[in-house]
């Protein structure tokens, strides 16, 4: 594991440094996330009595769309500037490359969500200060990051990558999105861990499955 950790952190360091230089990913995803929530808020005619019912759905629709936007960029810079080739000819395992890229995506997504959540809480009138909600968001985002990284690696090799990613991404992540919405509905309603029932463990199981399968598949995806 220590052999994996070093390269993973190097990849994360490089991606964070590149993002700090360009700021194109986090800023654009935050703006997009804000637009989505504003549109949904007016389209669904959210009123104080309905916010508990509507907020989780709007929240996860915005997070899911934002994730697609973020994941679309996950490998673009590496592909365009040859960094992916540089990684592939370095003595770093494919698992480490995958986990490094997935961890970077997770960090970026969590940053975006941390910026958006208070705004959503105000606009949709719910309390964001719920550990259950934060845990749900973390587990859901972990699933987004892991699956998104794999499909981003596939999509970046195709000509229609912007279309390809959501087509691959949403069907696989549907169970996670459904479970995240259900768990968030209960968390927003003030339920405890027990009250979240099977939904939170379900996200956890899917995350664990993705964490095993996706790095393995990634090795085949990047093989030329």
């Amino acid at each position: 594991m220590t052999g994996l950790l070093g390269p993973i952190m190097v990849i994360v360091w490089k991606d964070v440094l590149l993002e700090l230089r360009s700021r194109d990913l986090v800023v654009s995803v935050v703006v997009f996330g804000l637009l989505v929530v504003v549109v949904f808020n007016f389209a669904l005619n959210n009123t104080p009595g309905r916010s508990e019912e509507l907020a989780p759905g709007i929240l996860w629709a915005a997070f899911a769309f934002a994730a697609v936007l973020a994941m679309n960029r996950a490998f673009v810079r590496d592909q365009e500037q040859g960094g992916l080739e540089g990684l592939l000819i370095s003595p770093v395992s494919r698992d480490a490359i995958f986990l490094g890229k997935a961890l970077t995506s997770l960090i970026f997504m969590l940053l975006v969500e941390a910026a958006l959540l208070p705004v959503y809480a105000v606009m949709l009138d719910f309390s964001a200060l719920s550990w259950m909600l934060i845990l749900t968001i973390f587990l859901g985002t972990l699933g987004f990051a892991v699956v998104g990284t794999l499909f981003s690696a596939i999509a970046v090799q195709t000509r229609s990558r912007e279309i390809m990613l959501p087509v691959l991404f949403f069907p696989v992540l549907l169970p996670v999105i459904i479970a995240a919405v259900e768990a968030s509905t209960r968390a927003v309603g003030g339920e405890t861990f027990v009250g979240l029932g099977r939904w939170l463990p379900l996200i956890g199981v899917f995350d664990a499955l993705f964490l095993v399968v996706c790095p393995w598949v990634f090795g085949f995806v990047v093989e030329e």
Partner: protein
Amino acid sequence: MTNAATEAVQVRSLEKSFGEWPVLWDLDLSVPWGQTLVLFGANGVGKTTLLRILATHMRADYGSVAVAGHNLRTRPQEARRRIGVVGHRSLLYDDLTCRENLVYYGRLFGLKDHGSRVDDVLEKVRLSSRADHRVRTLSNGMQKRAAIARAILHEPDVLLLDEPEAGLDRESVSILGTLLAEWTDTGRSVVMTTHDLDLGLDWGHRAGVLRGGKVNFPDSGSTDSGSNTGASGIRQAVADALETER
């Protein structure tokens, strides 16, 4: 340079096709330690494909390939540690400085002393004054020199260079020539492709022509660069081989 392998590069019965289109077939090749093999060939004969296979970036369909004694199919990671690659792209990030790019690669290759090593290689390719400039601000030639610095950073046993002189000015070509001579003098090996007959024959200990999926050696012997008495004969043989291909 410490390596128990008898040959720096050993290729046996290599085959590679793209769909129905065979590029390399039944290709045998060996490069001894301390030598530069220069590969010539027309466009599309598979020079870059061969280098990409040697660099572990592409899998062969059939055959065995070993670099620095490591079979690329069974021990690719060990082989990658021993290989340095300069291709058509610099493999550097535009928004990072030269130093940051090299530190990044140094860490990926697990170099303990990457700070001083980065300074050394930047000095070698005469980029010390531009070390902290972003790669996007450098000229193409400077980016190529930075790519050479990246390739030699981890002191690989085998350097793979795909048309390394492309885009370089005369001074940079001279720097590269000196570097390659130093490289082979210390017992390490180089495999490079080029379209520049004079340069290739000047730098290489052996010259091969990739044709019909195989590497042919028109000289059928070695040429000591600088003192090759039969240089004109070899030049003619390589030129003839290339002409036949066209």
